[in-house]
Protein backbone atom coordinates (compact mmCIF):
# COMPACT_ATOMS: atom_id res chain seq x y z
CA UNK A 1 0.00 0.00 0.00
CA UNK A 2 1.31 3.41 -0.86
CA UNK A 3 1.40 6.18 1.67
CA UNK A 4 -0.25 9.11 -0.08
CA UNK A 5 -0.15 12.61 1.34
CA UNK A 6 -2.25 15.39 -0.15
CA UNK A 7 -0.98 18.95 0.14
CA UNK A 8 -3.28 21.81 -0.69
CA UNK A 9 -2.88 25.53 -1.32
CA UNK A 10 -6.04 27.62 -1.21
CA UNK A 11 -4.86 30.59 -3.22
CA UNK A 12 -6.92 33.63 -4.10
CA UNK A 13 -7.04 32.59 -7.76
CA UNK A 14 -6.30 28.88 -7.78
CA UNK A 15 -6.67 25.95 -5.45
CA UNK A 16 -3.68 23.69 -5.99
CA UNK A 17 -3.34 20.12 -4.83
CA UNK A 18 -0.20 17.98 -4.88
CA UNK A 19 -0.40 14.24 -4.21
CA UNK A 20 2.85 12.85 -2.89
CA UNK A 21 3.82 9.23 -2.40
CA UNK A 22 5.61 9.56 0.93
CA UNK A 23 7.20 6.14 0.75
CA UNK A 24 8.98 6.68 -2.53
CA UNK A 25 8.97 10.45 -2.14
CA UNK A 26 7.43 11.13 -5.51
CA UNK A 27 4.86 13.53 -6.82
CA UNK A 28 2.06 11.31 -8.13
CA UNK A 29 -0.09 14.06 -9.58
CA UNK A 30 -0.94 17.73 -9.28
CA UNK A 31 -4.08 19.66 -10.11
CA UNK A 32 -5.08 23.28 -10.24
CA UNK A 33 -8.64 24.61 -10.34
CA UNK A 34 -10.15 28.07 -9.81
CA UNK A 35 -10.68 28.82 -6.13
CA UNK A 36 -14.22 28.98 -4.80
CA UNK A 37 -13.59 30.81 -1.56
CA UNK A 38 -16.27 33.41 -2.26
CA UNK A 39 -18.99 30.77 -2.43
CA UNK A 40 -18.01 27.45 -0.89
CA UNK A 41 -14.36 26.56 -0.65
CA UNK A 42 -15.11 22.82 -0.69
CA UNK A 43 -16.55 22.97 -4.24
CA UNK A 44 -13.18 23.89 -5.74
CA UNK A 45 -11.42 21.44 -3.50
CA UNK A 46 -13.70 18.56 -4.51
CA UNK A 47 -13.16 19.49 -8.14
CA UNK A 48 -9.37 19.49 -7.71
CA UNK A 49 -9.52 16.16 -5.91
CA UNK A 50 -11.71 14.57 -8.53
CA UNK A 51 -9.23 15.62 -11.22
CA UNK A 52 -6.47 14.02 -9.22
CA UNK A 53 -8.43 10.83 -8.85
CA UNK A 54 -7.84 10.06 -12.54
CA UNK A 55 -4.27 9.30 -11.60
CA UNK A 56 -4.34 8.59 -7.88
CA UNK A 57 -6.70 6.59 -5.71
CA UNK A 58 -7.89 9.04 -3.10
CA UNK A 59 -9.60 7.31 -0.21
CA UNK A 60 -11.42 9.08 2.60
CA UNK A 61 -8.50 8.22 4.82
CA UNK A 62 -6.07 9.98 2.47
CA UNK A 63 -8.32 13.03 2.39
CA UNK A 64 -8.62 13.17 6.14
CA UNK A 65 -4.83 13.40 6.46
CA UNK A 66 -4.47 16.22 3.91
CA UNK A 67 -2.71 19.40 5.00
CA UNK A 68 -3.36 22.84 3.58
CA UNK A 69 -2.14 26.40 3.55
CA UNK A 70 -4.06 29.41 2.38
CA UNK A 71 -3.60 32.86 0.98
CA UNK A 72 -7.21 33.25 -0.09
CA UNK A 73 -9.54 36.11 0.78
CA UNK A 74 -6.79 38.72 0.65
CA UNK A 75 -4.23 36.72 2.61
CA UNK A 76 -3.48 37.26 6.29
CA UNK A 77 -3.95 41.03 6.62
CA UNK A 78 -1.94 42.61 9.41
CA UNK A 79 -1.61 46.18 10.67
CA UNK A 80 1.70 46.88 12.43
CA UNK A 81 2.06 49.54 15.09
CA UNK A 82 5.34 50.47 16.72
CA UNK A 83 6.98 53.45 18.35
CA UNK A 84 10.06 54.67 16.44
CA UNK A 85 9.80 54.03 12.70
CA UNK A 86 13.26 52.56 12.19
CA UNK A 87 13.17 50.49 15.40
CA UNK A 88 10.09 48.80 16.86
CA UNK A 89 7.85 49.63 13.88
CA UNK A 90 10.35 47.99 11.56
CA UNK A 91 10.71 45.02 13.93
CA UNK A 92 6.93 44.52 13.99
CA UNK A 93 6.88 44.68 10.23
CA UNK A 94 9.59 42.03 9.94
CA UNK A 95 7.70 39.78 12.37
CA UNK A 96 4.42 40.10 10.46
CA UNK A 97 6.02 39.41 7.09
CA UNK A 98 7.96 36.48 8.51
CA UNK A 99 4.69 34.96 9.70
CA UNK A 100 3.39 35.01 6.13
CA UNK A 101 1.25 38.07 6.67
CA UNK A 102 0.42 40.89 4.35
CA UNK A 103 1.15 44.20 6.04
CA UNK A 104 -1.76 46.40 4.98
CA UNK A 105 -0.55 49.41 6.96
CA UNK A 106 2.19 50.39 9.39
CA UNK A 107 2.12 53.13 12.01
CA UNK A 108 4.65 54.75 14.31
CA UNK A 109 4.50 56.95 17.43
CA UNK A 110 1.22 57.80 19.16
CA UNK A 111 -1.77 57.05 16.96
CA UNK A 112 -4.11 59.89 16.13
CA UNK A 113 -7.89 59.54 15.91
CA UNK A 114 -7.62 59.75 12.19
CA UNK A 115 -5.10 56.91 12.04
CA UNK A 116 -7.20 54.74 14.32
CA UNK A 117 -10.20 55.35 12.05
CA UNK A 118 -8.02 54.22 9.17
CA UNK A 119 -7.18 51.01 11.05
CA UNK A 120 -10.89 50.40 11.63
CA UNK A 121 -11.70 50.88 7.96
CA UNK A 122 -8.90 48.51 6.97
CA UNK A 123 -10.48 45.84 9.19
CA UNK A 124 -7.25 43.85 9.49
CA UNK A 125 -7.23 40.21 10.54
CA UNK A 126 -4.61 40.98 13.18
CA UNK A 127 -3.17 44.12 14.76
CA UNK A 128 0.40 43.74 15.92
CA UNK A 129 1.13 46.24 18.67
CA UNK A 130 4.79 46.86 19.50
CA UNK A 131 6.64 49.78 21.05
CA UNK A 132 9.46 50.35 23.50
CA UNK A 133 12.35 48.09 24.39
CA UNK A 134 11.85 46.12 27.62
CA UNK A 135 12.06 48.67 30.40
CA UNK A 136 12.04 51.47 27.83
CA UNK A 137 9.23 53.73 26.68
CA UNK A 138 5.78 52.70 27.97
CA UNK A 139 3.81 55.80 27.19
CA UNK A 140 3.37 55.24 23.47
CA UNK A 141 2.32 51.60 23.56
CA UNK A 142 -0.17 52.28 26.39
CA UNK A 143 -1.59 55.25 24.51
CA UNK A 144 -2.00 53.10 21.39
CA UNK A 145 -3.55 50.26 23.39
CA UNK A 146 -6.13 52.72 24.79
CA UNK A 147 -7.01 53.81 21.27
CA UNK A 148 -7.28 50.22 20.06
CA UNK A 149 -9.45 49.24 23.03
CA UNK A 150 -12.08 51.71 21.85
CA UNK A 151 -12.18 50.56 18.22
CA UNK A 152 -15.22 48.97 16.62
CA UNK A 153 -15.64 45.25 15.94
CA UNK A 154 -13.55 45.50 12.79
CA UNK A 155 -10.52 45.25 15.06
CA UNK A 156 -10.63 42.00 16.95
CA UNK A 157 -7.37 40.10 17.27
CA UNK A 158 -4.51 42.04 18.81
CA UNK A 159 -1.04 40.70 19.51
CA UNK A 160 0.94 42.78 21.98
CA UNK A 161 4.67 42.41 21.42
CA UNK A 162 6.32 45.45 22.96
CA UNK A 163 7.77 46.71 26.23
CA UNK A 164 6.89 44.02 28.78
CA UNK A 165 6.87 46.58 31.59
CA UNK A 166 3.73 48.05 30.07
CA UNK A 167 1.81 44.74 29.90
CA UNK A 168 0.02 45.02 33.26
CA UNK A 169 -1.33 48.41 32.35
CA UNK A 170 -2.24 47.24 28.83
CA UNK A 171 -4.11 44.27 30.32
CA UNK A 172 -6.13 46.72 32.45
CA UNK A 173 -6.84 48.81 29.35
CA UNK A 174 -8.25 45.85 27.44
CA UNK A 175 -10.08 44.19 30.31
CA UNK A 176 -13.84 44.28 29.79
CA UNK A 177 -13.50 44.93 26.06
CA UNK A 178 -14.44 42.22 23.55
CA UNK A 179 -10.95 42.29 22.01
CA UNK A 180 -9.03 39.05 21.71
CA UNK A 181 -5.62 40.06 23.05
CA UNK A 182 -2.54 37.84 23.04
CA UNK A 183 0.63 38.81 24.84
CA UNK A 184 3.82 37.73 23.11
CA UNK A 185 7.46 38.53 23.73
CA UNK A 186 8.79 41.92 22.74
CA UNK A 187 9.87 41.94 19.08
CA UNK A 188 12.74 44.20 20.14
CA UNK A 189 13.64 43.51 23.77
CA UNK A 190 16.82 45.58 23.53
CA UNK A 191 18.26 47.95 20.98
CA UNK A 192 19.97 45.86 18.32
CA UNK A 193 18.19 42.64 19.33
CA UNK A 194 15.34 41.24 17.30
CA UNK A 195 13.15 38.48 18.73
CA UNK A 196 10.46 37.82 16.15
CA UNK A 197 10.04 34.04 16.39
CA UNK A 198 7.58 33.91 19.38
CA UNK A 199 5.42 36.61 17.80
CA UNK A 200 5.43 34.73 14.51
CA UNK A 201 4.13 31.60 16.25
CA UNK A 202 1.31 33.60 17.87
CA UNK A 203 0.33 35.03 14.50
CA UNK A 204 0.24 31.55 13.03
CA UNK A 205 -1.82 30.24 15.93
CA UNK A 206 -4.42 32.99 15.56
CA UNK A 207 -4.46 32.31 11.84
CA UNK A 208 -5.26 28.62 12.42
CA UNK A 209 -7.72 29.11 15.25
CA UNK A 210 -9.60 32.22 14.18
CA UNK A 211 -8.79 33.72 10.82
CA UNK A 212 -9.36 30.59 8.76
CA UNK A 213 -12.86 30.49 10.23
CA UNK A 214 -13.58 34.11 9.38
CA UNK A 215 -12.44 33.71 5.79
CA UNK A 216 -14.80 30.84 5.03
CA UNK A 217 -11.96 28.43 4.46
CA UNK A 218 -12.65 26.49 7.62
CA UNK A 219 -15.39 24.54 5.88
CA UNK A 220 -12.61 22.63 4.17
CA UNK A 221 -11.84 21.17 7.59
CA UNK A 222 -14.80 18.88 7.15
CA UNK A 223 -12.87 17.19 4.34
CA UNK A 224 -9.21 17.45 5.32
CA UNK A 225 -7.08 17.46 8.44
CA UNK A 226 -6.27 21.15 8.80
CA UNK A 227 -5.18 24.41 7.32
CA UNK A 228 -2.00 24.93 9.17
CA UNK A 229 -0.42 28.13 7.88
CA UNK A 230 -0.60 31.04 5.45
CA UNK A 231 0.92 30.12 2.08
CA UNK A 232 3.89 32.54 2.28
CA UNK A 233 4.73 31.02 5.62
CA UNK A 234 4.82 27.56 4.01
CA UNK A 235 7.24 28.86 1.40
CA UNK A 236 9.45 30.37 4.12
CA UNK A 237 9.29 27.09 6.04
CA UNK A 238 10.43 25.22 2.90
CA UNK A 239 13.28 27.66 2.39
CA UNK A 240 14.38 27.20 6.00
CA UNK A 241 14.43 23.45 5.60
CA UNK A 242 16.42 23.62 2.37
CA UNK A 243 18.92 25.99 4.01
CA UNK A 244 19.53 23.55 6.87
CA UNK A 245 20.66 20.94 4.35
CA UNK A 246 22.18 22.94 1.52
CA UNK A 247 23.38 26.17 3.08
CA UNK A 248 22.10 29.70 2.74
CA UNK A 249 19.31 30.15 0.25
CA UNK A 250 17.00 32.73 -1.34
CA UNK A 251 13.54 32.21 -2.80
CA UNK A 252 12.10 34.70 -5.30
CA UNK A 253 8.37 34.63 -5.97
CA UNK A 254 7.12 37.26 -8.40
CA UNK A 255 3.39 37.32 -8.99
CA UNK A 256 0.50 39.25 -10.45
CA UNK A 257 0.28 41.81 -7.67
CA UNK A 258 3.44 41.54 -5.56
CA UNK A 259 6.91 40.05 -5.48
CA UNK A 260 8.02 38.07 -2.43
CA UNK A 261 11.67 37.58 -1.54
CA UNK A 262 12.82 35.22 1.19
CA UNK A 263 16.38 34.90 2.39
CA UNK A 264 17.59 32.31 4.85
CA UNK A 265 21.02 33.66 5.65
CA UNK A 266 22.92 35.25 8.50
CA UNK A 267 23.91 38.24 6.44
CA UNK A 268 26.95 39.26 8.48
CA UNK A 269 29.60 41.34 6.68
CA UNK A 270 31.71 39.08 4.46
CA UNK A 271 34.64 41.48 4.54
CA UNK A 272 36.60 42.32 7.67
CA UNK A 273 36.83 46.03 6.82
CA UNK A 274 33.07 46.52 6.75
CA UNK A 275 31.19 47.81 9.79
CA UNK A 276 27.58 46.79 10.34
CA UNK A 277 25.11 49.47 11.36
CA UNK A 278 21.39 49.71 12.01
CA UNK A 279 18.85 47.14 13.11
CA UNK A 280 19.96 43.53 12.65
CA UNK A 281 17.63 41.57 10.40
CA UNK A 282 16.24 38.09 10.99
CA UNK A 283 17.99 34.95 9.76
CA UNK A 284 14.73 34.03 8.02
CA UNK A 285 13.71 37.23 6.33
CA UNK A 286 10.78 37.83 4.03
CA UNK A 287 9.94 41.02 2.16
CA UNK A 288 6.97 41.77 -0.05
CA UNK A 289 7.15 44.41 -2.76
CA UNK A 290 3.63 45.70 -3.20
CA UNK A 291 4.44 47.68 -6.34
CA UNK A 292 6.06 44.86 -8.31
CA UNK A 293 3.34 42.82 -9.97
CA UNK A 294 3.02 41.73 -13.57
CA UNK A 295 -0.75 42.07 -13.69
CA UNK A 296 -2.20 44.45 -11.11
CA UNK A 297 0.81 46.76 -11.00
CA UNK A 298 1.70 46.71 -14.66
CA UNK A 299 1.55 50.52 -15.02
CA UNK A 300 4.09 51.08 -12.29
CA UNK A 301 6.23 48.28 -13.60
CA UNK A 302 6.30 49.88 -17.05
CA UNK A 303 7.29 53.21 -15.46
CA UNK A 304 10.17 51.42 -13.81
CA UNK A 305 11.13 49.74 -17.08
CA UNK A 306 11.22 53.11 -18.82
CA UNK A 307 13.68 54.36 -16.24
CA UNK A 308 15.87 51.28 -15.90
CA UNK A 309 15.74 49.83 -19.42
CA UNK A 310 15.67 52.90 -21.66
CA UNK A 311 16.99 51.03 -24.69
CA UNK A 312 14.64 48.07 -24.50
CA UNK A 313 11.65 50.03 -23.29
CA UNK A 314 9.96 50.85 -26.63
CA UNK A 315 10.12 47.19 -27.59
CA UNK A 316 8.77 46.10 -24.19
CA UNK A 317 5.88 48.56 -24.17
CA UNK A 318 5.04 47.82 -27.78
CA UNK A 319 4.54 44.12 -27.31
CA UNK A 320 3.02 43.77 -23.85
CA UNK A 321 -0.09 41.64 -23.91
CA UNK A 322 -2.72 40.96 -21.31
CA UNK A 323 -3.01 37.32 -22.29
CA UNK A 324 -0.50 34.52 -22.56
CA UNK A 325 2.55 35.76 -24.49
CA UNK A 326 3.14 33.89 -27.73
CA UNK A 327 5.17 35.82 -30.29
CA UNK A 328 8.91 36.21 -29.72
CA UNK A 329 8.35 39.93 -29.05
CA UNK A 330 5.70 39.23 -26.44
CA UNK A 331 7.89 36.65 -24.78
CA UNK A 332 10.80 39.10 -24.79
CA UNK A 333 8.67 41.79 -23.22
CA UNK A 334 7.36 39.48 -20.50
CA UNK A 335 10.83 38.16 -19.75
CA UNK A 336 12.34 41.63 -19.44
CA UNK A 337 9.63 42.76 -17.04
CA UNK A 338 9.86 39.61 -14.94
CA UNK A 339 13.61 40.06 -14.70
CA UNK A 340 13.15 43.65 -13.67
CA UNK A 341 10.78 42.59 -10.90
CA UNK A 342 13.32 40.05 -9.65
CA UNK A 343 16.15 42.56 -9.90
CA UNK A 344 14.41 45.36 -8.03
CA UNK A 345 12.76 43.16 -5.40
CA UNK A 346 16.08 41.55 -4.49
CA UNK A 347 17.84 44.93 -4.49
CA UNK A 348 15.40 46.16 -1.87
CA UNK A 349 15.65 42.93 0.12
CA UNK A 350 19.45 42.66 0.18
CA UNK A 351 21.75 44.78 2.31
CA UNK A 352 23.92 47.50 0.89
CA UNK A 353 27.27 49.12 1.49
CA UNK A 354 27.75 52.79 1.95
CA UNK A 355 31.12 54.52 1.68
CA UNK A 356 31.74 57.25 4.20
CA UNK A 357 34.72 59.54 4.20
CA UNK A 358 36.36 60.17 7.52
CA UNK A 359 39.54 61.89 8.62
CA UNK A 360 40.97 58.35 8.77
CA UNK A 361 40.08 57.63 5.14
CA UNK A 362 37.23 55.81 3.44
CA UNK A 363 35.16 53.38 5.46
CA UNK A 364 32.45 50.98 4.37
CA UNK A 365 29.26 50.66 6.34
CA UNK A 366 26.78 47.84 5.82
CA UNK A 367 23.02 48.25 6.22
CA UNK A 368 20.89 45.08 6.08
CA UNK A 369 21.99 41.58 5.17
CA UNK A 370 25.08 40.69 3.17
CA UNK A 371 23.80 37.96 0.84
CA UNK A 372 26.89 37.70 -1.36
CA UNK A 373 27.66 34.22 -0.01
CA UNK A 374 24.19 32.75 -0.59
CA UNK A 375 24.62 29.44 -2.41
CA UNK A 376 21.24 28.76 -3.98
CA UNK A 377 18.55 30.95 -5.50
CA UNK A 378 15.16 29.32 -6.12
CA UNK A 379 12.61 30.84 -8.46
CA UNK A 380 8.91 30.10 -8.12
CA UNK A 381 5.72 31.69 -9.44
CA UNK A 382 4.35 32.14 -12.94
CA UNK A 383 6.50 35.05 -14.22
CA UNK A 384 9.64 32.95 -13.72
CA UNK A 385 8.36 29.43 -14.27
CA UNK A 386 6.52 30.28 -17.49
CA UNK A 387 9.22 32.56 -18.89
CA UNK A 388 10.81 31.45 -22.16
CA UNK A 389 14.24 31.74 -20.54
CA UNK A 390 13.72 31.36 -16.80
CA UNK A 391 17.42 31.46 -15.97
CA UNK A 392 17.73 34.90 -17.46
CA UNK A 393 14.87 36.11 -15.29
CA UNK A 394 16.28 34.55 -12.15
CA UNK A 395 19.76 35.92 -12.78
CA UNK A 396 18.28 39.29 -11.88
CA UNK A 397 18.68 38.15 -8.27
CA UNK A 398 22.46 37.92 -8.54
CA UNK A 399 25.17 40.47 -7.76
CA UNK A 400 25.78 42.99 -10.49
CA UNK A 401 28.95 44.96 -11.17
CA UNK A 402 26.70 47.79 -12.25
CA UNK A 403 25.49 48.12 -8.65
CA UNK A 404 28.51 47.08 -6.63
CA UNK A 405 27.17 48.31 -3.29
CA UNK A 406 24.17 46.00 -3.30
CA UNK A 407 24.98 42.76 -1.50
CA UNK A 408 23.26 40.15 -3.66
CA UNK A 409 24.52 36.56 -4.17
CA UNK A 410 27.75 36.49 -6.15
CA UNK A 411 27.85 32.97 -7.54
CA UNK A 412 24.65 31.17 -6.67
CA UNK A 413 23.24 28.05 -8.28
CA UNK A 414 19.78 28.63 -9.72
CA UNK A 415 16.78 26.34 -9.27
CA UNK A 416 13.30 26.43 -10.69
CA UNK A 417 10.15 25.33 -8.89
CA UNK A 418 8.51 23.95 -12.01
CA UNK A 419 6.08 21.67 -10.16
CA UNK A 420 4.93 24.26 -7.59
CA UNK A 421 6.40 22.03 -4.95
CA UNK A 422 7.65 24.64 -2.47
CA UNK A 423 4.40 25.15 -0.55
CA UNK A 424 4.04 21.37 -0.29
CA UNK A 425 7.59 21.05 1.04
CA UNK A 426 6.80 23.72 3.63
CA UNK A 427 3.61 21.97 4.73
CA UNK A 428 5.52 18.74 5.24
CA UNK A 429 8.54 20.38 6.84
CA UNK A 430 7.47 19.96 10.45
CA UNK A 431 5.92 16.51 10.34
CA UNK A 432 8.35 14.81 7.93
CA UNK A 433 11.39 17.04 7.47
CA UNK A 434 13.51 14.31 5.85
CA UNK A 435 10.94 13.48 3.19
CA UNK A 436 10.13 17.13 2.61
CA UNK A 437 13.78 17.83 1.90
CA UNK A 438 14.07 14.84 -0.41
CA UNK A 439 11.05 16.13 -2.29
CA UNK A 440 12.64 19.54 -2.70
CA UNK A 441 15.89 18.04 -3.94
CA UNK A 442 14.09 15.83 -6.39
CA UNK A 443 11.74 18.40 -7.88
CA UNK A 444 13.55 21.73 -7.79
CA UNK A 445 15.15 21.82 -11.20
CA UNK A 446 18.70 23.20 -11.52
CA UNK A 447 18.85 25.64 -14.42
Amino acid at each position, binding site marked *: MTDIQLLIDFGSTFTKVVAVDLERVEVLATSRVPSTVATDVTIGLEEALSRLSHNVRITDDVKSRALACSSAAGGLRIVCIGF*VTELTSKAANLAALGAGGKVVAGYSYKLSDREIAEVESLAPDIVLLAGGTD*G*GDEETIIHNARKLARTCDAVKHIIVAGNKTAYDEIARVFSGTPKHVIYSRNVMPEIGVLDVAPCREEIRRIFMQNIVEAKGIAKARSLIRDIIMPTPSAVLEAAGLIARALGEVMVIDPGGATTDVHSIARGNPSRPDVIFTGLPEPYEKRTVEGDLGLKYNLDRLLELAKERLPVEFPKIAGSMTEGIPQTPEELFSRRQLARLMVEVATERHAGRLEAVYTPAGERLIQHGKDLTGVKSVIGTGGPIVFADRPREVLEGAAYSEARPFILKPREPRFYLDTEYILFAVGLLARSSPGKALELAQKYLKPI
Partner: protein
Amino acid sequence: MKRTPTVITGTVGMDAHVIGTKVLSRALREAGFKVVELGMQVTADEFIRVAQETKADAILMSSLYGMAEQDLKDFNQKRLEAGLKDVLLYIGGNLVIGRADFKEVEKKFKALGFDRVYPPETDPEVGIADLIRDLKARGKM
Protein backbone atom coordinates in the same frame (compact mmCIF):
# COMPACT_ATOMS: atom_id res chain seq x y z
CA MET B 1 10.87 51.73 43.79
CA LYS B 2 12.37 53.94 41.13
CA ARG B 3 13.29 52.56 37.74
CA THR B 4 16.98 51.84 37.12
CA PRO B 5 18.20 54.85 35.14
CA THR B 6 18.92 54.04 31.49
CA VAL B 7 21.84 55.75 29.79
CA ILE B 8 23.11 55.60 26.22
CA THR B 9 26.79 55.67 25.33
CA GLY B 10 28.70 55.87 22.05
CA THR B 11 31.08 57.86 19.90
CA VAL B 12 29.36 60.36 17.68
CA GLY B 13 29.62 60.82 13.92
CA MET B 14 32.42 59.02 12.14
CA ASP B 15 34.65 58.84 15.19
CA ALA B 16 36.02 55.33 15.73
CA HIS B 17 37.90 55.90 18.99
CA VAL B 18 35.97 53.34 20.93
CA ILE B 19 38.12 52.74 24.05
CA GLY B 20 36.85 55.73 26.04
CA THR B 21 33.19 54.92 25.59
CA LYS B 22 33.88 51.26 26.47
CA VAL B 23 35.61 52.18 29.72
CA LEU B 24 32.82 54.60 30.55
CA SER B 25 30.11 52.04 29.76
CA ARG B 26 31.69 49.49 32.07
CA ALA B 27 32.03 52.03 34.89
CA LEU B 28 28.38 53.04 34.46
CA ARG B 29 27.27 49.42 34.60
CA GLU B 30 29.30 48.87 37.75
CA ALA B 31 27.64 51.95 39.22
CA GLY B 32 24.24 50.27 38.67
CA PHE B 33 23.02 51.97 35.53
CA LYS B 34 21.28 50.22 32.66
CA VAL B 35 23.62 50.97 29.76
CA VAL B 36 22.63 50.87 26.10
CA GLU B 37 26.05 50.74 24.50
CA LEU B 38 25.96 51.83 20.88
CA GLY B 39 29.72 51.64 20.36
CA MET B 40 31.42 53.64 17.69
CA GLN B 41 30.27 55.84 14.84
CA VAL B 42 26.78 56.54 16.07
CA THR B 43 24.88 59.17 14.13
CA ALA B 44 23.00 61.93 15.90
CA ASP B 45 19.75 60.47 14.56
CA GLU B 46 20.53 57.06 16.00
CA PHE B 47 21.12 58.52 19.47
CA ILE B 48 17.70 60.16 19.22
CA ARG B 49 15.84 57.09 18.01
CA VAL B 50 17.39 54.87 20.63
CA ALA B 51 16.70 57.40 23.39
CA GLN B 52 13.03 57.49 22.39
CA GLU B 53 12.60 53.75 22.27
CA THR B 54 14.48 53.03 25.52
CA LYS B 55 13.14 56.09 27.37
CA ALA B 56 16.72 56.91 28.27
CA ASP B 57 17.50 59.32 31.08
CA ALA B 58 20.82 60.46 29.69
CA ILE B 59 23.02 60.30 26.60
CA LEU B 60 26.79 60.26 27.15
CA MET B 61 28.69 60.92 23.94
CA SER B 62 32.40 60.68 23.29
CA SER B 63 34.34 62.24 20.48
CA LEU B 64 38.09 62.41 20.02
CA TYR B 65 38.53 63.34 16.40
CA GLY B 66 37.65 67.01 16.57
CA MET B 67 34.53 66.93 14.40
CA ALA B 68 31.89 66.83 17.13
CA GLU B 69 30.70 70.34 16.50
CA GLN B 70 29.89 69.56 12.87
CA ASP B 71 28.39 66.19 13.79
CA LEU B 72 26.05 67.78 16.34
CA LYS B 73 25.17 70.97 14.55
CA ASP B 74 21.43 70.37 14.49
CA PHE B 75 21.25 67.74 17.19
CA ASN B 76 19.49 69.95 19.74
CA GLN B 77 16.64 70.90 17.40
CA LYS B 78 16.21 67.27 16.43
CA ARG B 79 16.09 66.01 19.97
CA LEU B 80 13.59 68.70 20.99
CA GLU B 81 11.48 67.77 17.97
CA ALA B 82 11.66 64.13 19.05
CA GLY B 83 10.26 64.96 22.48
CA LEU B 84 13.50 64.38 24.36
CA LYS B 85 13.86 67.66 26.23
CA ASP B 86 14.20 65.87 29.59
CA VAL B 87 17.12 63.68 28.54
CA LEU B 88 20.44 64.74 30.07
CA LEU B 89 23.17 65.29 27.50
CA TYR B 90 26.84 64.87 28.35
CA ILE B 91 29.79 64.96 26.01
CA GLY B 92 33.52 64.56 26.46
CA GLY B 93 36.75 64.36 24.45
CA ASN B 94 38.66 66.42 21.90
CA LEU B 95 35.63 68.29 20.73
CA VAL B 96 37.17 70.82 18.39
CA ILE B 97 40.13 70.86 16.05
CA GLY B 98 43.37 72.36 17.29
CA ARG B 99 44.08 74.09 20.57
CA ALA B 100 41.19 75.80 22.16
CA ASP B 101 40.42 77.19 25.55
CA PHE B 102 38.26 74.58 27.27
CA LYS B 103 36.00 77.30 28.67
CA GLU B 104 35.21 78.32 25.09
CA VAL B 105 34.56 74.75 24.08
CA GLU B 106 32.28 74.22 27.04
CA LYS B 107 30.33 77.34 26.17
CA LYS B 108 29.97 76.24 22.57
CA PHE B 109 28.59 72.80 23.45
CA LYS B 110 26.30 74.12 26.16
CA ALA B 111 24.83 76.32 23.48
CA LEU B 112 24.25 73.12 21.46
CA GLY B 113 22.09 71.81 24.31
CA PHE B 114 24.60 69.81 26.35
CA ASP B 115 24.20 69.80 30.12
CA ARG B 116 27.81 68.92 30.85
CA VAL B 117 30.98 69.06 28.80
CA TYR B 118 34.25 67.34 29.72
CA PRO B 119 37.83 67.73 28.51
CA PRO B 120 39.81 64.66 27.34
CA GLU B 121 41.09 62.19 29.93
CA THR B 122 38.37 62.93 32.46
CA ASP B 123 37.93 59.99 34.86
CA PRO B 124 34.64 58.14 34.41
CA GLU B 125 34.00 58.61 38.15
CA VAL B 126 33.78 62.37 37.70
CA GLY B 127 31.08 62.12 35.06
CA ILE B 128 29.19 59.42 36.95
CA ALA B 129 29.15 61.51 40.15
CA ASP B 130 27.73 64.44 38.16
CA LEU B 131 25.18 62.17 36.52
CA ILE B 132 23.92 60.83 39.85
CA ARG B 133 23.69 64.39 41.20
CA ASP B 134 21.77 65.60 38.11
CA LEU B 135 19.40 62.63 38.09
CA LYS B 136 18.68 63.03 41.80
CA ALA B 137 17.99 66.72 41.26
CA ARG B 138 15.40 65.71 38.67
CA GLY B 139 13.84 63.13 40.96
CA LYS B 140 14.91 60.26 38.72
CA MET B 141 17.08 58.47 41.29
